[in-house]
């Protein structure tokens, strides 16, 4: 029996899964991972805890399946992106806690840096041109810089070539290979703000801007192929797939051709649109990122995220207090045919793409004496779907300009809230395209296992994988284009009024 081991190192937990060669997941084990909040806006994790929780999950899933490590055919690793670990090459000892992607401590540094010039060029446009990203605390570069500035002796150690940087994939592989391999894949590299997505190499100018010695950086490898051999935990295991979690999900949803898109409904939403082999720049400040590189062929994607999706439902429960539990929202919202004019703009932490307004605040408009909990619940679900619609439209608008008509024909969905049938139907209605739910909501681990199996030769090409991929349910739009335009116009009026 051929078994693929998938490692999914996420922000709140480490998971390990086993996949059979027919693409079905047989076992899943999970270990929680605590976050550390040293002060407001700071979010850290203990790198040793990241490793030990991941190792524990691997041992647990093998134990559950009664498998010896030698039965594992190949290994795929997917991970929370951008989270930054710096350690001593000699000892493997981290010199600081990992700075998690959510950490905002370098926000002011980034804002300041963005306005400076480097070699006569504005840093913001230089960075954006080379990386497809924006100068923001979210990405790894400013986090590395902070560690070098604030940990005593770090800067001189780094200059002496004694320190290594890695995102979480790199850190786990270092651990799994007892320090023999210091690598990252292109999808993770493209989230550091140091990686030129056109040349697919670390960029000297960017390294200068962020004052980071090149010697710290890992070797950049493909997302699929023979990438590393493990010695720890899994003796002689083949790591054949690596990808950041959102890119892995895009692959897991088999969005392989330009115009195919996926959306993950979690606390927030992550949308990714496959744009093919050339990077497309966004006028709406959507992120351009590397999707993966397989057999030296690179695919790119556009990425847009929404800060508050499932979090809006949590707020109905914890803030407004009109739900006992989040899943209740579906039945409650379904008990009314529409929101009776109530509009909920869930900008509870500002607005992301394509509005980019950190000062926007949430609002509930259109209340009358007759407004009930059910109308509020329905308005909250609508607010989620309308934010998604804004990103899809921004992606299309921008792809039009560059390639002459990249249309999203259907949206493949995963994540917790994608099991909400009403939400998916509303999403189809507001977008006017089918929403397709895959058979497993575990698109991320599915994707990295696919990458690993492909890299190990279990499957010879992506067509085989596509044939395996099944949809479980399709939601066709039941709205007219007039209804959609009216809804969007009303929404944009409301959005304007929620802005700072």
């Amino acid at each position, binding site marked *: 029996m051929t078994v693929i081991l998938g490692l999914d190192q996420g922000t709140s937990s480490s998971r390990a899964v086993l996949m059979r060669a027919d693409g079905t997941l047989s076992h899943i084990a999970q270990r929680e991972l605590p976050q550390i909040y040293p002060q407001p806006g700071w979010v850290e994790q203990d790198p040793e805890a990241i490793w030990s929780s991941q190792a524990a999950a691997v041992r647990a899933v093998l134990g559950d399946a009664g498998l010896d490590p030698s039965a594992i055919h190949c290994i795929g690793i997917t991970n929370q992106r951008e989270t930054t670990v710096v350690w001593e090459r000699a000892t493997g000892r981290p010199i600081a806690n990992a700075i998690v992607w959510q950490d905002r401590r370098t926000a002011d540094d980034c804002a300041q840096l963005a306005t400076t010039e480097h070699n006569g060029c504005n840093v913001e446009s230089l960075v954006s041109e080379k990386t497809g990203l924006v100068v923001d605390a979210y990405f790894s570069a400013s986090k590395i810089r902070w560690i070098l500035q604030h940990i005593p002796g770090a800067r001189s150690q780094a200059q002496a070539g004694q320190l290594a940087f890695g995102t979480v994939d790199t850190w786990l592989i270092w651990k799994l290979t007892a320090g023999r391999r210091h690598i990252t894949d292109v999808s993770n590299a493209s989230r550091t703000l140091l990686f030129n997505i056109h040349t697919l190499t670390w960029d000297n100018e960017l390294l200068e801007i962020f004052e980071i010695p090149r010697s710290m950086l890992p070797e950049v490898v493909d997302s699929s192929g023979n990438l590393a051999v493990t010695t720890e935990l899994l003796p002689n295991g083949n790591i054949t797939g690596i990808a950041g979690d959102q890119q892995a999900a895009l692959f897991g949803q088999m969005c392989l051709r330009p115009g195919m898109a996926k959306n993950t409904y979690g606390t927030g939403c992550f949308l990714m649109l496959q744009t093919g082999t050339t990077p497309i720049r966004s006028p709406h400040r959507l992120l351009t990122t590397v999707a993966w590189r397989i057999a030296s062929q690179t695919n790119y994607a556009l990425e847009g995220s929404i800060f508050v999706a499932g979090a809006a439902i949590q707020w109905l429960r914890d803030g407004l207090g*009109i739900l006992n539990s989040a899943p209740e929202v579906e039945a409650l919202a379904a008990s009314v045919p529409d929101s009776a004019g109530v509009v909920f703009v869930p900008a509870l932490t500002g607005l992301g793409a394509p509005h980019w307004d950190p000062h926007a605040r949430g609002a509930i408009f259109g209340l009358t*004496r007759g407004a009930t909990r059910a109308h509020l619940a329905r308005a909250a679900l609508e607010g989620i779907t309308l934010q998604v619609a804004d990103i899809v439209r921004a992606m299309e608008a921008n792809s039009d300009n560059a390639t002459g008509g990249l249309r999203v024909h259907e949206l493949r969905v995963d994540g917790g809230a994608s099991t909400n049938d009403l939400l998916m139907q509303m999403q189809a209605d507001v977008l006017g395209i089918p929403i397709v739910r895959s058979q497993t909501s575990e698109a991320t681990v599915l994707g990295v296992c696919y990458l690993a199996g492909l890299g190990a030769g279990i499957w010879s090409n992506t067509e085989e994988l596509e044939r395996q991929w099944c949809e479980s349910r399709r939601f066709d739009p039941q709205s007219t284009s007039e209804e959609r335009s009216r809804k969007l116009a009303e929404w944009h009026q409301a959005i304007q009024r929620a802005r700072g």
Partner: protein
Amino acid sequence: MLFLGIDVGTGGSRAVLIDETGKVVASHATEHVPFQSKFPGWAEQDPEDWWRASQESIRTVLSAADCLPADIAAVGLTGQMHGAVLLDADGQVLRPSLIWCDTRSGPECDWLHATLGREHVIELTCNPALPNFTLTKILWVREHEPEIFARIAHILCPKDYVRFRLSGVHAMDVQEASGTLLLDVTHRRWSIPMAEATGVPIKWLPQLFESAEVCAKVSKSAAAATGLVAGTPIVAGAGDQGAGAVGMGILKPGSVSATIGTSGVVFAATDAPIRDPLGRLHTFCHAVPGRWHVMGVTQAAGLSLRWFRDVISAGAQNQPATYEQLMTLAAEAPAGSDGVFWAPYLFGERTPHLDPDVRAAFIGLTASHRQPHLTRAVLEGVAYSLRDTFTLFAELGIPVRGVRLGGGGARGPLWRQIQADIYGRPVQLLVAEEGGAYGAALLAGVGAGAWPDVDTACESSICVAETIRPDPTAVDVYDRGYQTYRKLYPALASLRA
């Protein structure tokens, strides 16, 4: 000597019996049949039901009080304003009354403004045409039920119909008449130009009186029905706003009340008929000769909190919090509710926006806001909307020297303090607030000669229990908050579904 006040409200009719010191001897309320609403915006009541409830309240009060009916020196009336009671020549009710909250007559308001000009309507009556006002209801009947219009011989307002049943007399006080849109408010007489322009014969309108004037006597048949003594004098009384102001001692220029009931009213006594050229305030004759009053109305004041209690605080268990629990919750949030605002337009808005279609909203929400913030924001939003009327007063040069609180908004310490802080001035709480029926009883006392005038009646019977001073820190927060609040209406008004 005792004085009886009767308040013909919307939900019920209440009788209050007081003595010469202003002390309440007995009171009783009898519920009405809920108003009928055949279509959205319609609201009708059967005048016979008011009379039934009034009789029952009077009889109950008489039997509860340890007194002889002959001890009652006079009766005063008050009640819901604006309702149109249409009678034929025999005094029979022609159709159910279109009451104050019936808003079907929007087109008639438009017709009046188009025909006479909005400014001219304000010149003649001191007020613009609103669907609440009696005349617009009569015009609706003329348009839609001409066979009934043809049989009209008398027009009364709700409490005046109860007077008619008590005495057989058609009479109305000038304060009540101000809400008909047929009164020349400046000169305290029926407006002949208004009546002529709208085809309402002056002879349909009852004789006018000042509020404390005796205008009728209890008839023999009414005496039999109520237990009162035939011949007991009846004073003209006033509409609920006028009598309520008497009951709170809001009589002299500079004296202001802020009352949060279902709706919210900021009411100021003036010594001249000050009118807003834009019609954002109501300008009425007061229940005291030679005085007027202005008032601004927030449609959903207490209603905002009731909606929040029933819909939001009830939560998934559908168990609404008590008002006390809501106040405890609200007290957990700081002044300004950490940036959450409530725009209280659940029912459109009257003052200062005159916009029946604008809708309510919560604004400024973040992930960390919880029910205490939202609850407090509702209390603050309602007070901000009342502050809008204070702003108008300042604009029109209407003096504000003392503010007394009334209604549910006066009952808890938190909302009282929020009002003091948002209005930015001390506010007074009265020892007891007995509502319009109490004011009507005081007017009866003046009519009976127990007091020389209404001012004296109020001075000798109304006491301030507590003065609540604004907290300077909170005043700063709220002054800034009010600047934000002022931006909400324009944003919401342009947001049309």
